[in-house]
């Protein structure tokens, strides 16, 4: 088990390391000059001053040196300053990251609470009209663009009915964005749970249990549920990454003050330090969650636990 987790951690570290390199290269791939963008609105800045700013950012050095400087600053918790307003990027991100995480976790909760029972029910009634109906619903759910679902929810619950507030970051504000993200992903969980449960039910040990005449409910509870939910747990890591990605759109619809809204604003503003910081933060979060999920999986799956 420790070896399994160790491999995952090493892989995660590799990912983050590659991210830091890509993020440094990113600024060189963009057309235009970030310092020029920074002072585009200023009338009185002399070329000498611009050179000086460039030097202080290390943009006059070779790329490997810049990378080392970037790493050095990174280890000091310095992600640079934003182009618009000169704010420390780390602070700008840290004020918003908790909001995105709360949104992702709440959506995940909704997705599981809705998706898993539906999948289980469909598997239990495999081949019946219930199963077919639920799976049609699920495929429709997967096909629903979440930005559209979000707009419709906003339209009905916030604008037409006025039941839910539309600004701020309180618990009431969380409902609609979490529902938007959660519902789209519930469909994925439902499908996954169903196919995994059916797989397990067709396995020898379950068939044997049925053959022994144990009541269906007991077999399901004792054998199928646990084994069938394992793949669902593995999917949680990937799903979390999807949620983080989906949050980018949903945050923009519902004025949720998370890193996704920040990132889109930053792309429009060509605020590269924020974009760099966002990419790095995003990949760190995704990697950490993936490792945590893998560890949970390792604990739950006896085969890995014993290894």
């Amino acid at each position, binding site marked *: 088990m420790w070896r399994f987790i160790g491999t995952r951690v090493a892989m995660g570290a590799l990912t983050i390391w590659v991210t830091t390199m890509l993020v440094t290269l990113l600024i060189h791939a963009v057309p235009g000059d970030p310092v020029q963008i920074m002072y585009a609105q*200023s009338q*009185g800045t002399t070329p000498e001053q611009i050179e000086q700013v460039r030097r202080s950012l290390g943009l006059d050095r070779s790329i490997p040196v810049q990378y080392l400087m970037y790493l050095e600053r990174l280890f000091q918790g310095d992600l640079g300053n934003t182009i618009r*307003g000169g704010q*420390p990027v780390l602070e700008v991100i840290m004020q918003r990251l908790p909001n995105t995480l709360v949104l992702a976790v709440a959506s995940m909760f909704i997705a599981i609470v809705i998706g898993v029972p539906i999948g289980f029910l469909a598997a239990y009634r495999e081949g019946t009209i219930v199963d077919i109906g639920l799976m049609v619903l699920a495929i429709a759910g997967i096909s629903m663009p979440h930005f559209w679902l979000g707009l419709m929810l906003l339209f009905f619950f916030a604008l*037409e009915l006025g*039941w839910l*507030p*539309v*600004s701020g970051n309180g618990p009431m504000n969380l409902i609609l964005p979490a529902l938007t993200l959660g519902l789209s992903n519930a469909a994925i969980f439902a499908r996954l749970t169903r196919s995994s449960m059916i797989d397990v039910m067709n396995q020898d040990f379950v068939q044997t249990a049925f053959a022994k005449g144990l009541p269906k409910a007991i077999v399901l509870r004792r054998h199928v549920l646990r084994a069938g939910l394992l793949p669902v747990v593995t999917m949680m890591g990937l799903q979390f990454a999807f949620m983080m990605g989906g949050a980018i759109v949903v945050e923009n619809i519902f004025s949720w*003050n998370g890193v996704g809204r920040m990132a889109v604003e930053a792309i429009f503003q060509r605020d590269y330090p924020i974009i760099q910081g966002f990419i790095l933060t995003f990949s760190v979060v995704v990697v950490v969650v993936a490792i945590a999920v893998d560890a949970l999986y390792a604990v739950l799956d006896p085969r890995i636990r014993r290894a």
Partner: protein
Amino acid sequence: MIMNRLALKQTAAALGAVFALAGPATAEDIVWARYGDIDSLDPHRATSTLSLQVWSLMYDTLLAMDAEGNPVPHFAKSWTANDAGTEYTFNLEGGVMCHDGTPLDANDVKYTIDAAFDETTPSLTKGSWGPITAAEVIDPLTIKLTLESPFVAMIPFLADSFSSIICDTNGEGFGTTTAIGSGPWKLVSWTKGDRLVFEKNADYTNFGKLADNPGAPYEDGLIITVVPEPQARYAALTTGEVHIAEPPFDDVPAIKDSGELDIIVAENTGQNVFWEFAVHRPPFNDVRARLAVAHATDAATAISLIYGDLSIPENCPISRGVFGNDQDFCAQYRPAYDPEKSKELLAELGYSMDKPLETALLVWTGGNRQKLGEVFQAQLAEVGIKATIEIMDIGSLNARVRQENENTEGTTGSMDMMTWSWYDPDILYALWHTPGAYRGYTSPELDAILDETRVLTDPDARKAKVQEAMKYLLENAIHVPLYTPGWEWVFAVRPEVEGFKVAPFVYPIFSDIKIGG
């Protein structure tokens, strides 16, 4: 139909309130929602209107502006200038306090000006201090400013929030987490991307800012929140979550008809939205190509489609409310809407419907400007100009326009719907005097005219010069004015809010507000 919808909304809102789902804000806090956040609390670190509006609430300025946009005494109660116009001495009001309890005096003014001209961290807004070379503290209530050359716009410059006075007790974290000023509102906290929280400065004395209230604000607090979606702001207004916000433009007539909210449109914004072109390469290095665009543009129809009657066409390169503006004068020289004329010019240049003039059309995000751009794009297509819209943030737009001007290669043109607001015609100097804010069109002839506008002390003589510059810009289709105002100028206000007004150049005032009176 719309009435029914509104009625449904009100019922639903009431229902929501019963379930305490959407609780209104606490009675003593004014809540103002805007589409975006400030960039910085430091007046030297940002240029956006969103930032300026906030600075005007938390800082004082040496001078202030009256309702017509003329400079009046504020923190400086009087001033004198030497005959050459290169030295200004200001006498300051005594007893003014910073939010941290220290006195605001000449040392703070010097501190601010020194910071603005600091070489190590270049200020973005240095230009707003004019050609100042030194600030000297004569005594705590007297400060002398020395100018490199005479500059008639110095006085109006000092009345704008770009020239806000920062208290010299500001240190670590200034602009990011803290900011000490002396204005009517005192910063409590700033959650980036979400909200700014202010409490009233109970010790405030208003000397010259445009407000009826001579002292501290009536309400205890002010919260400025970020709600990017216009429809969400509208919903927040109807539920009472927010008191003041920019409504969706298309819903304004319905809001007015229903009377559920008051609509306040800012006057004397000085905002000018205009076409400008990358003039150092074809096709727009030829005045005929620029005139073709100008003649093909029907600004009146386009803005009425997008903004209804909230905006009006503007004939001058400096808008209504700014010294020198004269609609009749400019109308003589501004290329009028005339698609046939435009087609003739394009034909002269060898373009036709089959071989259209190709150009990028740069527009900045928000305020439905991209929709307006879409209308203009269709108008240009009518005469055979193929414009490709690119939407970007204002900061990127500024950088991009400069890049386009520096690019002398290629045959694809670039034009942009630029927006500027300034309280003095000196903006024309910044934009079009060598080297030019965007490295765009310049000429020795125009330079000479603009130089004069900076030194002529006699208002009539200056006005004549400013108009000469405008005539030049219009005839050569360098700065083709489209409309005014252009951004953040419409406010929907809840009925229980009394005393809300907007000062010239779109500075909302909250000191006079009483809620629920």
